């Protein structure tokens, strides 16, 4: 949110005879307006974080407060400004991430069309905005033969490693120690 976008706060306020002074009423209205802006910014912040997860995280940006209290005008203004700055920073990161994913999609399309031009290029699926551990890779078909013959293909690896790790290698020494 740029300063021009922020709502103008009427510090003079309107006069309400018999209730309280005009300055007090004006300040109350200003606080109310600031709280509405804070609510809007908080919703936007949550939306960016939820949509951008796990690439965009909600990193805490303010020191822990001492506890809940009723904030004054200055405190609310400071909170609004900090929150607006944070939203702006997250928007930038979300935009950069979207551009990165777009470039990755374009690269994948090119790799599909002309695999020979992208020998051994690897493109993780996370760069495409997808979950998982898969990687797109241009590899030679039939190994060395394909490499020499210029047979290149695009392959997607099978995904995340198993939680138990790879198959244990048989240890000949262990086998010898085992009672028959």
């Amino acid at each position, binding site marked *: 949110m740029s300063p021009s976008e922020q709502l103008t706060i009427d510090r003079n306020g309107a006069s309400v005879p018999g209730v309280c002074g005009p300055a007090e009423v004006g300040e109350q209205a200003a*606080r109310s307006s600031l709280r509405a802006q804070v*609510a809007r910014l908080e919703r936007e912040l949550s939306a960016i974080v939820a949509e951008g997860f796990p690439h965009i995280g909600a990193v805490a940006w303010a020191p822990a*407060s001492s506890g*809940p209290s009723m904030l004054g005008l200055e405190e609310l203004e400071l909170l609004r400004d900090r929150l607006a700055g944070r939203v702006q920073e997250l928007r930038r990161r979300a935009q950069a991430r979207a551009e990165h994913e777009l470039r990755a999609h374009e690269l994948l399309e090119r790799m599909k069309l002309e695999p020979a031009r992208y020998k051994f290029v690897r493109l993780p699926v996370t760069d495409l905005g997808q979950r998982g551990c898969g990687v797109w890779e241009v590899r030679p078909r039939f190994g060395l033969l394909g490499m020499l013959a210029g047979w290149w293909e695009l392959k997607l690896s099978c995904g995340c490693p198993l939680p138990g790790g790879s198959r244990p290698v048989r240890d000949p020494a262990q086998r010898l120690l085992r009672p028959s």
Partner: protein
Amino acid sequence: MSSLPPAPEPPGSAAGFRPAPGWCAREVEEELPGLRLLTAEAHVARRGPLTGGSPPDVHGRLRELSNRMRGATAVAVRREPVPAAYRVFFRHIGLDPDVERTPIEAAVLERMLRGGFLSGGLLQDVLLIALLDTGVPVWALDADSVEGPLGIRASAEGERLGRYHDAPPLPARRLVVADSSAPLAVLFGGLAPGHIPLAGTRRLALYAVQVAGVPELYVEEALWNCRSALELR
């Protein structure tokens, strides 16, 4: 923001259950419209201590909720209407919900870190289940230590949290849940020593904090859940 999910249906005799509205200091009410305190009294009929192990039905419910909450839920919970309303309110009272998490987000994060909702004793489990079911946090005080109706106000200069000699001092203007004579809990925070229900406590003063954007039905449901779970024989 998405629309509200279908409101929870009050089971059984919940239809006739009406929690008592607490009071709210005028300055707080004017400054934070929509803030309300709802209270209910519960008589513990379950056997065994309140801080002891939970019965199988409570354990089963926790297990079921553990299975329901997954990683995707943990991320998306901040956008759901009720948790989002508490996040906004946290900002309004000067708390950063990414540092001092809202109760529902704290519970879901714990679930992710520990791999499930671990039992913390009967009372804690019942309060947790109500929170997970509705998104509304509920706290319990020892009803015998409460004088008069509960409400929300700002603390005065030199006040202490609780009535007892070891009560910690409170800074001025801190938002607290108080009875007619003393602050008994910090709003969305810890309870005063000496007012926390003990293993043998049988009468509880339950309270829930409603903020702007949270339908009253959800708050009633949270209190009803706790009361009915504790009063079950």
